[in-house]
């Protein structure tokens, strides 16, 4: 995951002698690799194959976690899961799953194994199982087909385990995992002003699919959800676009739907010291199976768009604490200038308002708490009032939500605090333990299930 070398994409597999299936010609080189893999691997990666029958991939030699450019593959295997420190892709499809009432521990292991096999293929730009068209025509294709011919698009698939995997809503230890539940994976407390919809909150499992092509991300979730049928079902899912955080120094800071640059002060992939300090779970921090993993907090944050749009620029900048144009902190000239939280204007008032979002979210206001934010904007059409159902699908990775997200959100939440609360509302929430990365031949969460 720390390999940031950038190389031109190498062929995923050696060319075969098999004539390519009849496909329309396209200049996209990656299409070739995708369809050639169909022939090479064939049914070996059959969906839901024997538990533990990990398939070793010699593939993706050109994949890199760091500076992969659009269209390339990001390495699936590694010490850490991809999709966390990976430079943020443009698109998101996030899904939370409920484990079915009859599922067993063996079913879970089989599911995670099948998911891992499918994910390794899809992130490499390959299709699932025997593919979309190469299998037995008398049965439904293994792969749903809509990514056929598309580039890998830097697809990453990142899995997390919700509290319900360890202890269900009735307090039962369904899978013999209660003793392995990390203390960091505590349910989030209720925050002031929360208006959480249970149907858009929680989840026993989650998959974050990020890609530069939305169809590739949707394809991945769709196929993983299909594989899960009978064991787990989608509780809710969220599409996102316009990454609202830059997670690499090579990325420009993008704007959220309020029109402000978002993520200026975010942790960056190149900052390995910062990642170790704030993101990756270290040895001895809770159960060993989480070492090298990270905790994910998701919040569906609805923006009250229409009143915001008719608010003056001065007020918008007061609420955020930054200049809307440059992204510079108020009172500073450039985006990456440090916040001066002590600065006062001529009349003695703070230049950055006492309730400005940047002040209250700043590490210095939160005992140093820092997050790796990886959120995306969403617009789910309009609501029953004709208003945009839009906002930020906030996602943040951290070593311990209890001292990181919870500390920050406690500072921000409620009408006493962050001025931004006038224009936003938290309507969904989730917390997940994302295990460390997968070694070739292994599967997600292997150390948890032993």
């Amino acid at each position, binding site marked *: 995951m720390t390999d940031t070398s950038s190389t031109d994409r190498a062929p995923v597999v050696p060319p075969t002698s098999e004539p390519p299936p009849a496909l329309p010609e396209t200049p996209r080189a990656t299409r070739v690799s995708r369809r050639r893999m169909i022939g090479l691997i064939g049914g070996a990666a059959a969906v839901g194959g024997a538990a533990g029958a990990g398939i070793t991939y010699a593939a993706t030699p050109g994949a890199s976690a760091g500076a992969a450019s659009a269209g390339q593959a990001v390495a699936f295997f590694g010490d850490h899961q991809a999709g966390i420190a990976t430079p943020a892709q443009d698109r998101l499809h996030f899904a939370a799953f409920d484990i079915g009432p009859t599922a067993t521990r063996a079913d879970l292991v089989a599911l995670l194994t099948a998911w891992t096999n499918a994910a390794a293929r899809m992130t490499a730009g390959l299709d699932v199982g025997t593919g979309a068209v190469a299998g037995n025509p008398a049965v439904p294709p293994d792969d749903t087909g809509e990514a056929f011919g598309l580039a890998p698009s830097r697809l990453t698939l990142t899995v997390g385990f919700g509290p319900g995997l360890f202890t269900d809503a009735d307090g039962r230890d369904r899978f013999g995992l209660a003793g392995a539940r990390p203390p960091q994976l505590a349910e989030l407390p209720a*925050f002031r002003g929360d208006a959480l919809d249970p149907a858009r909150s929680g989840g026993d499992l989650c998959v974050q699919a990020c890609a530069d092509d939305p169809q590739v991300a949707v394809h991945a979730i769709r196929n993983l959800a299909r594989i899960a049928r009978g064991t787990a079902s989608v509780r809710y899912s969220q599409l996102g676009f316009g990454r609202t955080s830059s997670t690499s120094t090579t990325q420009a800071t993008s704007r959220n739907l309020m029109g402000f640059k978002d993520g200026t002060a975010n942790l960056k992939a190149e900052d390995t010291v910062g990642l170790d300090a704030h993101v990756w779970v270290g040895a001895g921090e809770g159960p060993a199976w989480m070492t090298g993993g990270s905790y994910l907090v998701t919040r569906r944050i609805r923006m009250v768009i229409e009143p915001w749009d*008719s*608010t003056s620029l001065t007020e918008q900048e007061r609420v955020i604490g930054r200049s809307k144009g440059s992204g510079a902190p108020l009172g500073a000239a450039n985006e990456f200038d440090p916040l001066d939280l002590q600065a006062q204007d001529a009349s003695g008032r703070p230049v950055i308002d006492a309730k400005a979002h940047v002040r209250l979210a700043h590490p210095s206001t939160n005992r140093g708490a820092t997050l790796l934010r990886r959120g995306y904007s969403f617009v789910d059409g309009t609501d029953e*009032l004709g208003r945009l159902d839009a906002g930020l699908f906030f996602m943040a990775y951290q070593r311990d939500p209890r001292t990181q997200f919870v500390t920050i959100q406690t500072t921000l939440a409620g009408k006493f605090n962050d001025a931004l609360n006038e224009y936003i509302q938290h309507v969904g929430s989730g917390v997940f333990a994302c295990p460390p990365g997968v070694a070739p031949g292994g599967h997600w969460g292997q150390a948890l299930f032993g």
Partner: protein
Amino acid sequence: MRSAHLRAATVLGPLVVTALLAAGCSSSAATAPAGDGSIAVDAGDSTCGVAQTVIAAGRHTFTITNTASQVTEVYVYAAGDRVVGEVENVGPSTTRTLIVDLPAGDYQVACKPGMIGNGNRTALTVTGTPAPTGTADQNLQAAVDSYRAYVETEAQALLDTTTTLATTITSGDLAAARQAYPTARLHYERIEPIAESFGDLDPLIDMRIDDAGPGTPFVGFHAVEQILFQKNTLDGAAPLADALVANVGKLDALVKTVQLTPLVMGNGAKSLLDEVAKSKVTGEEERYSRIDLVDFAGNVDGAKHVFTALRPALQANNSQLPTTLDQRFTALVELLGTHQAKPGAPGFVPGSPYVSYDALTPADVKALAVEVDALSEPLGQISGAVTGR
């Protein structure tokens, strides 16, 4: 000269509500009153009788008797519904006095039983010396003075009606307490942005249960509302109501110190509409009593008062904005008016002139939201227009 008028008027006593002329530094107020007798106003359920409808410019005293079946309020409007005088919260069968300085012009006296809507109106013609056209600064100062009078009047009415609420609770009359609740809310919602400017006082008065947490008990109007309307009891309400009266009393004292500027007013009006958009039209605010439309009307009243007070300044700076705001305020107020309810009607809530939020159809709510958003856009232009930016 203006501030001298304000002081002179203010010392006349607590029942005197004075609004300053918004049209600059009037000399007419220095003239003697038109007559030695006051002008009787009969504020009925569907009438607004004014004993004299053609009067000479100068200082006039109106003696208002509420002959309606519910609490009323009376406004004297100059052109464009610019408030030049008002008296709030006049109970049935009671009489109150209103003193106003009136330069020549066309006015309307509006009686508003239930304290909502456009009210019943009677035209009033004032003859003699018209007010001189004010300078830009005079227009703005007049607007600030008018708004200050409004805020102080509303804060006093809020204290009075909240005290009534507490008294009904203490006396053990649940039905009366439930009936007293909407009126107090109306006065709060009219000046909500001013209340919010006082840091932690606003949450103590207006917090929701979701705003409570460890170390932050659920208090204020909505805690009382929950007991009265959801738990349907008076048990536990009295201490909350007493604390609420104390906090509202603090607010009433603090509003006299608040620094008002045209910018504060413009932002406040916008903030009122944001409140409507976020909390009222969605039925979020009054989740136990379902009187969200009362709050809605209060927010719109407060925003409209800012607009009408600033109208002369806006007309000087931007001729189209007042026209647009007139149209959109009218559309919203009329739409809101279609949801009034009388006793016995479906959705009637005792003490509320409007139907319960639960009686609204999704289409009703959508239509209200559309009008709110339509008004919010031009309302957001006020601050820029009055500050010349």
